């Protein structure tokens, strides 16, 4: 049987040999060395084993970015458990679904994660509270010496959840080697990350993008990561960059927009050597405006949860605004027509992707897996691209999904929430651009007795904001007498789009 390196050991060992006391993590006033990271993560792995968590068992982690998150994630990897990284902002129903779908044996969370704890209360299984003094005591008394699991190349190490086109989350599994191959391909070859770098990511660890940015990349190259629990506002991002002399900033387009709208002192960015944007397409005017204002390039790229990180990216010194950039080796891509035939450059086509870190299947979804993970190792990304001179330009999606603030948004999810309001008889959700960025908008047909107007629009927006994450809240509600539909009654959302 062939074996594969355990990702935790592969990420930590070179640092322990080279600079064990180097700061691996900075958060607030606290620093954590590579040596401490290794010890605490071993204790965490040991704690899992003594709690009857075995290799292959799923451990859900619902927490803010913190050193304890690293201890838990590395501990899971060392123990061979599958870390299921989840957004701390989900609702009880989502957690309930995901815990069942993943078959989670344990929940690692924080005392403030009430929705996750409520969902977990209905299930048997271990719960560890990272911010509970009792947990700190248990961790410090756990054994630091611990025989790490040696995985086979196909062993699953990680499970991320991505929105599906119906709004139901789908599990995307990854193997130990995927952490390493994405780090080498992007952080190594494109960013030339080194131990001199200090990185900060506005995207959090539970995102594939944030996970590479803050976890596997800095550990792989012996850099230092700055963590911020919760969602930092623009002023906080500037303060963190300045205070810790951050050299690489990872963000999504809206984060760069917010920085431009609030930044008064450009000297706050003087330590930066590179900015990276992903999650959604970076508008060309925003890319130019940022570079003109700050003198620093933004490398826009495209990645996905299925690929674990970026596979097409602009390069330092060769940025083409409006383009996602050029291919990141060793990834391979093909652009094909609806029948799967290759198309010539300059023609929009469906992007197929192949590479070392592609998820082998969707968790518990054989049909969706068969549609997406094709023969020969190709992944159907669902994105439509056009290629010119090796540069790729995003053209949209083949389905109704779209991205807001780097989150996938399913119109179905917002529509079903709006329909819970007594005023709404029918509705459809589409999208439009505001200052170049995509935002959800709603079209509503009202029930008799309700008056359209600003008051009801405000009420509907508040209603959605109370039930769904803020980025799903429509920025505009349009009143219509009827929705455009096909002969079979399906809403034609593309007719409602106010952007591409």
């Amino acid at each position, binding site marked *: 049987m062939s074996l594969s390196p355990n990702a935790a050991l592969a990420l930590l060992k070179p640092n322990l040999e080279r600079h064990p006391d180097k700061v691996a993590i900075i958060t607030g006033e606290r620093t954590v060395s590579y040596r401490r990271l290794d010890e605490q993560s071993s204790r965490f792995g040991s704690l899992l084993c003594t709690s009857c968590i075995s290799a292959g068992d799923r451990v859900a982690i619902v927490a803010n970015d913190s050193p304890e998150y690293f201890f838990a994630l590395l501990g899971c990897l060392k123990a061979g458990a599958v870390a299921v990284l989840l957004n701390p902002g989900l609702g009880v129903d989502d957690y309930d679904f995901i815990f069942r779908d993943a078959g989670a044996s344990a929940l690692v969370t924080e005392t403030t994660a009430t929705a996750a704890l409520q969902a977990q209360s209905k299930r048997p299984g271990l719960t560890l509270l990272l911010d509970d003094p009792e947990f700190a005591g248990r961790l410090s008394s756990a054994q630091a010496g611990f025989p790490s699991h040696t995985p086979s190349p196909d062993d699953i190490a990680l499970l991320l959840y991505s929105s599906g086109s119906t709004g139901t989350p789908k599990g995307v599994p990854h193997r130990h080697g995927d952490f390493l191959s994405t780090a080498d391909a992007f952080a190594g070859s494109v960013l030339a990350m080194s131990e001199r770098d200090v990185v900060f990511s506005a995207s959090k660890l539970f995102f594939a993008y944030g996970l590479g940015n803050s976890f596997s990349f800095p550990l792989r190259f012996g850099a230092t990561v700055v963590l911020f629990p919760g969602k930092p506002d623009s002023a906080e991002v500037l303060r963190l960059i300045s205070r810790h002399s951050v050299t690489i900033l990872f963000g999504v387009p809206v984060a760069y927009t917010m920085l431009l*709208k609030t930044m008064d002192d450009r000297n706050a960015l003087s330590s930066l050597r590179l900015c990276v944007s992903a999650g959604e397409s970076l508008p060309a*005017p925003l890319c130019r405006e940022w570079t003109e204002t700050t003198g620093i390039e933004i490398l826009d790229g495209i990645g996905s949860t299925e690929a674990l990180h970026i596979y097409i990216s602009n390069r330092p010194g060769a940025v083409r605004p409006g383009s996602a950039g050029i291919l990141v080796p060793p990834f391979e891509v093909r652009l094909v027509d609806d029948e799967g035939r290759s198309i010539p450059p300059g023609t929009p086509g469906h992007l197929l992707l192949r590479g070392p870190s592609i998820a082998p299947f969707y968790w518990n979804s054989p049909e969706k897996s068969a549609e997406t993970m094709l023969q020969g190792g190709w992944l159907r990304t669902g994105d439509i691209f056009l290629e010119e001179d090796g540069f790729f330009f995003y053209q949209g999606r083949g389905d109704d999904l779209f991205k807001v603030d780097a989150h996938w948004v399913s119109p179905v999810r917002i529509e079903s929430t709006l329909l819970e309001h007594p005023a709404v008889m029918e509705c459809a959700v589409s999208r*439009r651009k*505001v*200052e170049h960025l995509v*935002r959800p908008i709603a079209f509503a047909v009202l029930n008799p007795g309700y008056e359209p107007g600003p008051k009801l629009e405000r009420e509907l*927006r508040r209603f959605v904001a109370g039930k769904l994450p803020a*980025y799903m809240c429509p*920025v*505009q509600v349009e009143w219509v007498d009827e929705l455009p539909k096909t002969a079979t009654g399906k809403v034609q959302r593309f007719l409602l789009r106010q952007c591409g």
Partner: protein
Amino acid sequence: MPLQLMDICALMDEIGIEREIIDAIDPDAPLLTQGIDSIDFPALAIAVEKKFGVDISDTSAAKLRTLNDFVRFINEKAVT
């Protein structure tokens, strides 16, 4: 008559931004540092479009930062 600050404040109230936040706004400081978040901001931009018939969809991100930026932008558009 040129648009006044209070017209934008009334619009903010209409889209559901809290009165306390509106009353405390410094018209020359970035809105995003004064309690307006990344969800309220585009909602305000769209409300301005609808109410005053201007197009903000492709406006540069640095152009509209403060309340007075909105007032200037709308008054300039009204002239052109």
